[in-house]
């Protein structure tokens, strides 16, 4: 029992540490899928099968795909080449903060007595979870639905490009001109585009 937990924990932590020490963003994203799979393995080990499969579907399937698309859409080069003295000192400070947080948390966990473990393990069958969600937690379920809807509409609006619609860009640039300021972006949008700009 404990050996399995140790294996899952070692796998998860090693893949997470590797993911954040790579310079290649795609390697980081792919290693993080392994981390999320390790967390799903922990849920399976703890007896929460429904959560484990939700984790695999949501993180392994959806979030990892969004992350990969974001990496591919925003990269200039795959590797992050800039290593400055400032970034080195920031990494050192982050390591210090992380070590301090681990020390405090582990000391607090080890010095707390949590009482006896339950005699028989609690179960969470899908049927039971369904009754809970539709009965006592129905209000929370509605709120979560509203949050997800608003978040998806907001994400679409934020990520949707308005460059394809010249009339909208021209209108926003005209309103900026009316206020007496014309940013470089507005000027680029108003003037006819040639060459490199047209390609972008």
């Amino acid at each position, binding site marked *: 029992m404990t050996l399995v937990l140790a294996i899952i924990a070692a796998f998860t932590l090693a893949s*997470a540490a590797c993911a954040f020490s790579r310079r290649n*963003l795609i390697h980081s994203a792919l290693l993080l899928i392994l981390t999320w799979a390790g967390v799903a393995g*922990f849920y399976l080990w703890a007896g929460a099968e429904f959560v484990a499969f939700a984790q695999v579907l949501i993180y392994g399937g959806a979030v990892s795909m*969004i992350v990969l698309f974001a990496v591919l859409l925003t990269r200039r080069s795959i590797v992050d080449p800039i290593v400055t003295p400032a970034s080195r000192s920031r990494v050192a400070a982050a390591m210090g903060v992380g070590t301090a947080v681990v020390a405090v948390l*582990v000391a607090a966990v080890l010095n707390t007595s949590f009482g*006896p473990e339950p005699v028989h393990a609690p179960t969470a069958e899908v049927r*039971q979870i369904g009754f*809970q969600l539709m009965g006592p937690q129905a209000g929370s379920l509605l709120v979560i639905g509203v949050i*997800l809807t608003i978040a998806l509409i907001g994400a679409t609006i934020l990520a949707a*490009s308005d460059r394809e619609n010249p009339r909208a860009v021209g209108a926003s640039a005209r309103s900026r001109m009316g206020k007496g300021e014309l940013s470089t972006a507005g000027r680029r949008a108003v003037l006819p585009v040639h060459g490199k700009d047209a390609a972008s």
Partner: protein
Amino acid sequence: MNTLQLCLVFSSVLFAIGLMAALARSNAILVLLGIELMLNAANLNFVAFWRFGPASDGATGVIFVLFAIAVAAAEAAIGLALVIAIYRHQKNIRLQEATRLKG
């Protein structure tokens, strides 16, 4: 050291790895992934207390984790959309250079 404490130590280390990533990396996507990892560590704690805690009843911890996963998914979608919007304005997603809210 009983099983609950082992699980909590595991999730503490996972949380710290996410925290270090969020503080150390300058790429906005990696910072978001660090935050996701911290949320995952919190979910681990919910499941650990549900399974090994002294007074666990029903499926409370599991339902809490489900809601937390839903909110984390919404947060990831919004965050990555913001990253793409920032990239469109300044062709670059380094957080040090994202110093203006105005486009």
